[in-house]
């Protein structure tokens, strides 16, 4: 029943595939661009500042930060939640959209997956740094120890958090690596020097491109995608439980898990837009991925923004309708109190800015895309600031209300994490292709041979 391709067309397709592969993989070869070097230098400088701030923090104690007894969690936790949110885009794009057979995702799925790994690393830094005694962080691991019956507290949301993020990181690494295998093998085959060949050879785990290998690969990829889909939902739900499970008015709310998950994917997608636009320039695939490819993401952003706007409204309504005076105080504070400026920034960045995407022109304009995606991420950081710090400043007892001002030592690690993220991406996509070459080849094959998949499936 399959239409057999003619020999000529097969060789034509082969040539096309080879051309595509060299286009995609060529981004790794040749001299680095000046812009790449400049960005790397800037990112390293940021990292240096971050390392200095962390060193001072570890030397003198967490007191160098501006947190106090009422507001015991500050911008470190805010940034932790922020990075975990960013880390959701990769898995969302690769896993959920893969299962939903959305081919447009391949334009930036690799970028998103790489960003996920680095964002998780950046995020993991903050809970460690903010500990009073970070050198004892391993006590959160449930390992057999000599301390008798002393064990970790599985009732603590921090414990769940720790497990969830560790799982997510492992799955993300596996997923990223698995998706990379064919590309790594291609790079191995293209490598000119034996050292590079050996390097990619080791990483590609002996990939030879046989048909059964492809079949197994696709099965595992689907399976992992299924697992990762569950994680996309669970990780940020669990992060939200850090807050929702507590007693603090303004944190203690059942709306938090969906709110956090959508917020996370939303901020992650915004980051993907930023990265695609910048990455195209830096890594030289500007002509391969165009603004048209980003249009579905822009639409998703718009949807997310509307959803989050709805959640904000719901939160205020709940506070008003429940009539709990402490919760009311927290939300009044957002409108008229100390949290006004961060909350207004949140509204502008998260709810208002993406409304531009109702217009097709904006969805396809690079400046608009860049502006909105940056605004969304600034807004999302502010939103987490409002969520984490705001309720703590208010609290229950009037006498314990206390203002929180971050110190420079506290902002240093944030800058450092941005540097780590940027430098990590710059280096990572000099080693692996920023675009999933294998998937692009499959897409080309599908376009040229529309019945290819049917034949594949029939053999299964």
């Amino acid at each position, binding site marked *: 029943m399959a239409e057999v391709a003619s020999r000529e067309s097969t060789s034509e397709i082969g040539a096309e595939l080879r051309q595509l592969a060299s286009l995609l993989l060529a981004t790794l070869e040749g001299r680095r661009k000046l812009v790449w070097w400049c960005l790397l230098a800037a990112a390293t400088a940021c990292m240096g500042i971050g390392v200095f701030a962390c060193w001072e923090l570890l030397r*003198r104690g967490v007191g160098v930060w501006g947190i106090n*007894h009422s507001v015991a969690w500050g911008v470190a936790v805010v940034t932790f939640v922020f990075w975990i949110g960013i880390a959701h885009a990769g898995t969302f794009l690769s896993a959920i959209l893969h299962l939903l057979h959305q081919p447009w995702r391949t334009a930036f799925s690799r970028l998103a997956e790489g960003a996920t790994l680095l964002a998780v690393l950046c995020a993991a830094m903050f809970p460690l740094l*903010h500990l009073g*005694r970070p050198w004892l962080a391993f006590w959160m691991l449930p390992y057999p120890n000599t301390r008798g019956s002393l064990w970790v507290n599985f009732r603590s949301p921090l*414990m769940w958090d720790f497990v969830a993020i560790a799982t997510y990181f492992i799955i993300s690494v596996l997923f990223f690596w698995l998706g990379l295998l064919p590309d790594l093998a291609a790079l191995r085959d293209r490598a000119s020097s034996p050292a590079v060949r050996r390097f990619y050879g080791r990483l590609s785990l002996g990939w030879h491109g046989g048909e059964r290998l492809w079949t197994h690969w696709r099965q595992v990829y689907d399976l992992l995608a299924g697992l990762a889909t569950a994680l996309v939902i669970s990780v940020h739900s669990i992060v939200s439980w850090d807050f929702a499970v507590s007693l603090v008015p303004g944190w203690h709310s059942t709306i938090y898990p969906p709110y956090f998950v959508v917020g996370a994917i939303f901020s992650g997608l915004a980051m993907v837009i930023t990265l695609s636009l910048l990455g195209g320039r830096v890594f030289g695939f500007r002509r391969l991925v165009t603004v048209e490819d980003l249009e579905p993401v822009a639409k998703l952003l718009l949807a997310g923004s509307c959803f989050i706007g709805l959640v904000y409204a719901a939160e205020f309504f709940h506070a008003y309708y429940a009539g709990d005076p402490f919760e009311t*105080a927290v939300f009044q504070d957002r409108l008229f109190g100390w949290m006004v400026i961060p909350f207004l920034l949140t509204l502008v960045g998260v709810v208002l800015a993406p409304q531009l995407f109702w217009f097709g022109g904006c969805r396809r304009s690079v400046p608009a895309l860049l502006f909105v995606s940056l605004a969304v991420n600034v807004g999302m950081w502010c939103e987490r600031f409002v969520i984490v710090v705001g309720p703590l400043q208010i609290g229950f*007892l*009037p*006498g*314990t209300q206390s203002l929180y001002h971050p110190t420079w030592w506290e902002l240093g690690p944030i800058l450092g994490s941005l540097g780590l993220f940027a430098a990590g991406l710059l280096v990572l996509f000099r080693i692996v292709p920023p675009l999933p070459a294998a998937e692009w080849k499959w897409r080309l094959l599908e376009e040229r041979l529309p019945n290819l998949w049917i034949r594949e499936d029939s053999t299964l």
Partner: protein
Amino acid sequence: MGDEIANREGRSERDRRRRTLAERAPGRTGPVSHEGGRLPTEAVSGDSSLERRSFLRLSGAAVGSLFLEQCSRGPTEEMIPYLVPPEDLVPGEPIYYTSVCGGCTAGCGVLAKCLDGRPVKLEGNPNHPASRGALCALGQASLWELYDSGRALPPRQAGREVPWETLDFSCLKALEEVRRRGLGVTLLTGTINRPSLLNQLQRFAERWEAAWYSYDPISVSAVAAAHERTHGLRAVPDYRIDRADVLVGVGADFLGHWMAPVEFAQGYRDGRQLETSRLRLSRHYQFEPYLTLTGARADFRYLSAPGEEPYLLAALVRRVAALLGRPLSLPPLADPRLSLEVLDDVADHLVASAGRSLVLCGAQNPAAQVLTNLLNEILSNYGRTVEIAYPSFRKTGWEADLETLRKELAAGDVGAVIMVRCDPVFELFWGKELASHLDGLPVSVLVADQPTETADHVRFFCPEPHYLERWEDSQPTARVTAPAQPAVKRLGSTRPALETFERWLGGQRDDLTIVRDYWREKVYPRQVGVASFEQFWTESLAKGAANIRPERVSVSAFRMEALESLGDLMVPERSALEGESILVLHPSNTIAEGRHSHNPWLQELPDPITDSSWGPVLRIPKSPFQATLTAQESPFGVQLETQEREFRLTALEIPGQHSAVVAAPLGYGRPDTDRLQHLVGPIDRGRVGGSIIGVNLFTLVTCEGGFFQYHRPVRWTHTEAVKPSAALPGSKFPSDREKERPLEVFVRRMTLAELLSQRSSEAVLEEAPNLWPEDHGPSGRHWGMAIDLGACTGCGACVVACQAENNIPCVGPEESSRGRLLHWIRLHRYHLEDFGDREDWIFQPMLCQHCDRAPCEVVCPVLATVHSSEGLNEQIYNRCIGTRYCANNCPYKVRAFNWFDYRDTYAANGEKPGLNPEVTVRTRGVMEKCTFCVQRIQRAKIEEKLTGEPLAVQTACQQTCPSRAIVFGDLNDPEDPLAGYVQNPRRYRVLAELGTRPSVFYLALVRNQETRRKSDG
């Protein structure tokens, strides 16, 4: 082995070199150590000419062994046990010594708890008749000064350290020279109510024909002056607040720092007993210009401007006299600006409780004081609530004579000034002038236990030991005489004043002998019951007070003629001009008149009214009349201007203040407080150069008619403050933001009628039903606490007591202003406005509530905070990794975090030996909080096991509380005194609706505010 080598002959030079290497190895002397032992043997085992290889091998081994030495344990120190151990010293067992607190002149009894020979905590002495087991914040904090690194100073002569013999010799020689030249010798002291020291000083004054002046920085001399007029005795009476049913305070902050806060608070509490079956609730009216602790406690509080007291009292006298039917002829005085109904009500209640009422006046105005005496006289309060025949010696200063001293000094008639336990250069408004005189005098002596500002200007500085290091005695009132014994050997080369004056009088006795001799002669004859002196002495020491007949002083009956010259007694005052306010200078609520302003425990204690610490705050009225200022957000900088000088202070709007009055605390600005900047807080933060904490406002005190005046008109303007003059944690006065909050979940009030009608709070305060089965609650003991908001005066003694007991470090001004105080118990203030113009203040001690369903426990990932089987919420410091989630989830915010390593500061300020060895010193990065004094519970449990006696645990905060507001005990024990509180209809739990089930209960505040007094009965 080294010697063996040395004896060997014919060694080469190289050998000798090696030998020195070997010698450096450990084990050269004494027993041969493992790592060093083998080395020399090998060094000499081969022939004398060593191969290169073996040389290298040996050098390597030798160098290596040097490092091994570094790895070995430190030098061995011999620990020799007592050959004859002291009979009563058991390591780890505390010994309590009775003594008398030297924090102020109130003379409260203390028990100094000594562990392994070091005093680590002061407790109130329950057997002391005046303080009855309580101690104020000042008293609690005075322990710190024992270990103060800035205290133990050798004697100094002209700035140089000299031995005592040299100082004595040159001082006496100089004194003789002064006498020979016909110049005056002057003795200048603060209040000294130490009988044996007074005796010494009297002998000294007689020997050198010295004129004796005394003053109190916070003076009450007008009270004494008035009694001189009305009773023929210049003395302050002993006020028996415990006997009063109706109290009228006119500017007298008797629960604050007026004479004897502890005794007065105890007496005040006696008058307000609602937990017993015999209900007693006194009625308290307070007239004052700014909010004091006393005013915050009063049932009725009215604002009156300073200077208005005579008019107010005259109006009251007229009403009371009319009600009593005793016509009096008073000189005409204008009516005060108060509603007449108020005065009628006060007079009505005073008359109804005649003989059981008390009028107290704090004004430094003899006219007002004479009127106060008149009121107490016609109400028959003398002999009942006011004892003038058994006077008080707590404030005996008489500054009227200081003018003479000032003139004599200026005229150059004085050759010697000997100052004892005072700091006139700092505390007198003409201190700078005095300092310049002192610099030029041939003999200027200061006998004091602190290197004060005066010490810098004297020729002979005689440092005294801390009061816990010397023998003395005390007689704060005619009823109370107590011996003061040391609790520790003297730590420095100091000498008690008793011995100093003994030497100068030619004697050689030590302080103990002096006190004993005095007691044998003067005190022993007055003892009750027959006993030998030795027995009397031992019993007095054991009890902490002597059991003797009080000394009655002869006084005349009330002299009505004193009223005739009332007009002459009025203090002339300059009324405030347009644009001026009246500045009221008051003793600070925390550091009092400033003699302890170098004490970080007191500096860091937040002022219960302003919530500020580490500096003075200018209190301005809530709605200042200067319209330009209302737009400013409080706190802001303010410039105070008088004719002579300007001050910059941080101003806070405080409710309950007369609109024409601004108030500022005295006692700050002592020059030695700059060292505190290095002594507290995280010392590695690179702070260089300190600064003096606050400004000295004593310079604004005036002396009118011979009485220190603590109020004067000033002009004040808004200014850009360079830096705040005090640490403000950032929270405003709660009333600002609490409008939208239901205050009933924090603090509750009831009227007396509500309480009497048994409208039990149970109906009102029904807690939410508990969905959890009560299956794992504490079945044996369940520790709990009850705090009576009706009793708490907000004095802060509990805060400092807790700090001393639990080794809580001071964090310093910077950290305080960031809201990082480590106190385990703190005072929350609430300001409630209702009934139109009626305002209400409540102080609430807040500490870990030891919740049965503790929200902190579930969220800790490493189980560092857990629940004990006895209902305690326990914090395990060495398990804590510092996530601070527990602090976030604590609704009461009672968890304190160690942001830095504060252990270094202990070492830096010499406080280390004073740490309580029973309590862990916390490291950086861990959470801490109230433990209900678990170390005391454990000790009591061990005692119970050993002796079988029932458990008696008192937490540190409970022990020290002067108003007995805190009760601790077993919630599961129906016999426990706590049960009466927990079942009281006034009881409630803070934030009960959260379902945390705290073990700390609060008792609602009850004020006696019934408008119509019930018929007597």
